[in-house]
């Protein structure tokens, strides 16, 4: 048994040894700065205060352009908002409803039962307003990118300049080194972590742009951390109950499997082979 396991590992090792020399690194930008997120690991969970702060960042900054369509306002009650608070938050947005008995569409204030109201009526108008790029929905952003939470966190920090058309020094050096003309689109912003580096979104997080309920104005780092936490909750609202159930399941299965092993040994006690 063990020899077969060993040989499989040797076979896998052989395969990787053959591959080794082929693994050439692609000359891409700076590496992601990894953060330690509280929800990773088998005991991980969310800090609800961070999530509420992150929601403040979303509703004071991101909501201008980015939808969050898989969330309902009622979902906010799961991160510590009271029903009245949620009603008040939802009431700030207008949704189209209808047709009414006169056959007319009408708008009304959103309720907790409504989905998060999207900033634009459709993708066409979103693209028109944003220089041809549609701001993506953020409901699944941290799951829809490799190393999602770190990616979004770094992206929010990764701007070379507040002005469009100004690439990073390292990128210019790299072009010069490769003997290429450094052509960068005039209207795009340079971001170290965005694929292709040219992003349509200007840098968003500046000191003083957001006010938390305690009246304090968080640092850029704090805002990035909180909004990524909030977005990860938006993408994986089931995470905490999933991990709790997971621990109980593993505990149960561990005990059961130990007993089954004992039972197997007992039943097979007289069989030699």
């Amino acid at each position, binding site marked *: 048994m063990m020899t077969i396991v060993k040989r499989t590992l040797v076979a896998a090792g052989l395969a990787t040894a053959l591959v080794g020399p082929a693994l050439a690194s692609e000359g891409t930008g700076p590496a992601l700065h990894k953060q330690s997120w509280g929800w990773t690991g088998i005991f991980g969970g969310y800090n609800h205060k961070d999530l509420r702060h992150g929601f403040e960042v979303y509703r004071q900054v991101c909501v201008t352009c980015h939808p969050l369509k898989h969330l309902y306002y009622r979902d906010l009650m799961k991160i510590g908002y009271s029903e009245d608070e949620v009603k008040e938050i939802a009431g700030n947005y207008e949704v189209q409803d209808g047709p009414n008995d006169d056959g007319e569409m009408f708008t009304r204030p959103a309720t907790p039962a409504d989905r998060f109201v999207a900033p634009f009526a459709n993708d066409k108008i979103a693209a028109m307003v944003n220089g041809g790029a549609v701001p993506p929905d953020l409901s699944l952003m941290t799951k829809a990118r490799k190393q*999602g939470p770190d990616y979004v966190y770094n992206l929010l920090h990764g701007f070379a300049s507040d002005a469009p058309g100004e690439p990073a020094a390292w990128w210019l050096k790299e072009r010069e080194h490769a003997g290429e003309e450094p052509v960068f689109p005039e209207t795009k912003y340079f971001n170290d972590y965005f694929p292709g580096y040219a992003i349509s979104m200007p840098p968003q997080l500046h000191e003083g742009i957001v006010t938390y309920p305690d009246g304090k104005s968080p640092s850029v780092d704090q805002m990035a951390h909180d909004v990524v936490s909030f977005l990860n909750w938006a993408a994986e609202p089931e995470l905490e109950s999933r991990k709790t159930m997971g621990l109980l399941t593993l505990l149960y*299965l561990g005990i*059961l499997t130990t007993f089954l092993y004992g039972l197997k040994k007992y039943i097979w006690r007289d069989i030699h*082979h």
Partner: protein
Amino acid sequence: MSTYTPPTWNNKFVRWFDERLPIVTLMHKELVVYPAPRNLNYWWSFGSLAGIVLVIMIATGVFLAMYYVPHVDHAFDSVERIMRDVNYGWLLRYAHMNGASVFFMLTYIHLFRGLYFGSYKAPREVLWWMGVIILFLMIMTAFMGYVLPWGQMSFWGATVITNLVSAVPLVGGDLVRWLWGGFTVDNPTLNRFFSLHYLLPMLIVAMVMLHLWALHTKKSNNPLGIDCKGPNDYIPFHPYYTVKDLFSLGVLLLFYAYFIFFAPNFFGEADNYIPANPMVTPPHIVPEWYFLPFYAILRAVPDKLGGVLAMLSAILILFVLPWLDTSKVRSATFRPMYKWFFWAFVADCLFLGYLGAMPAAEPYITMIQFATVYYFAHFLVILPALGWFEKPDPLPESISAPVTSQA
């Protein structure tokens, strides 16, 4: 062992029923007293484990289908609704999603166990065929299932793979439009894939029945690869193998549960959480890990039709394996040379899997071509030749002989 006398059932209803439909007797014969070689190791657990995962897949799939909406405008959102608003929907979906990976892991180990111990050799060729058909159906089912969430990888994977059909000479173009139900992968494609994704598992169940029927007709192979000779070589399936398989199941569920609860997207692609967009092609279109070796073989041949034929042959060649292997000895334990070629083949398959995930560029293309040639050479050159060159080690007298001589 061929003489089976059914017991007289004490319960009156059972007796009455069993006389009319002898299902209780059948269960007793095939699951309780069924004679199994006494020396089966844990590698023999993987077949029954795969069967249990098939049941889990069908059970979770039936419930997912109650909430899933097979429409291009709603499929992605309906999956998210399952994840968020259906009670324990995330559990159903993650169990189903990771179940596919677990199912393929178990099946591949089961298949390689057959290769190592010569389980495909006479008199078990038809049993082996049924297994290859199951693998083929699994591949079809998994591919169509991956399309259903209608994410970017779903859409582009479907586009790449269905386009392979256009390689068929003369009618390829018509064939692929017939398959799509339109001029591109679109709503009709999604609808039929959903229908077939529900149908094929039922065919898998039917094939599993035939697989078991063939198994129980010729009985299990065993690690020594020699035939069972007398009652000493057998033990009844119950309780010995029921308890052994139950323990294996416990270990499997621990492994499976870890991924469901703590790393549910480990085997997935981040891109599939982006809704399908026919106007934006992802930079790398990669299939699920269990298709990677076949995907590599597809890309080994510079010609589209050639690539498709190579990929199909990689599976079809398994059908004739019982006749390509000219050695009379089943188990690699007694085949000093085959043993090493077996592990070289395992390494080649893992290498192909790695290459399948790499971009279609040098040096990978050349590596893929070498690995593909070796894949086929293993079946077409090495196995037929080994039967001639290899001098097998002496086989033991019987399964119980080594034990009794030791004792």
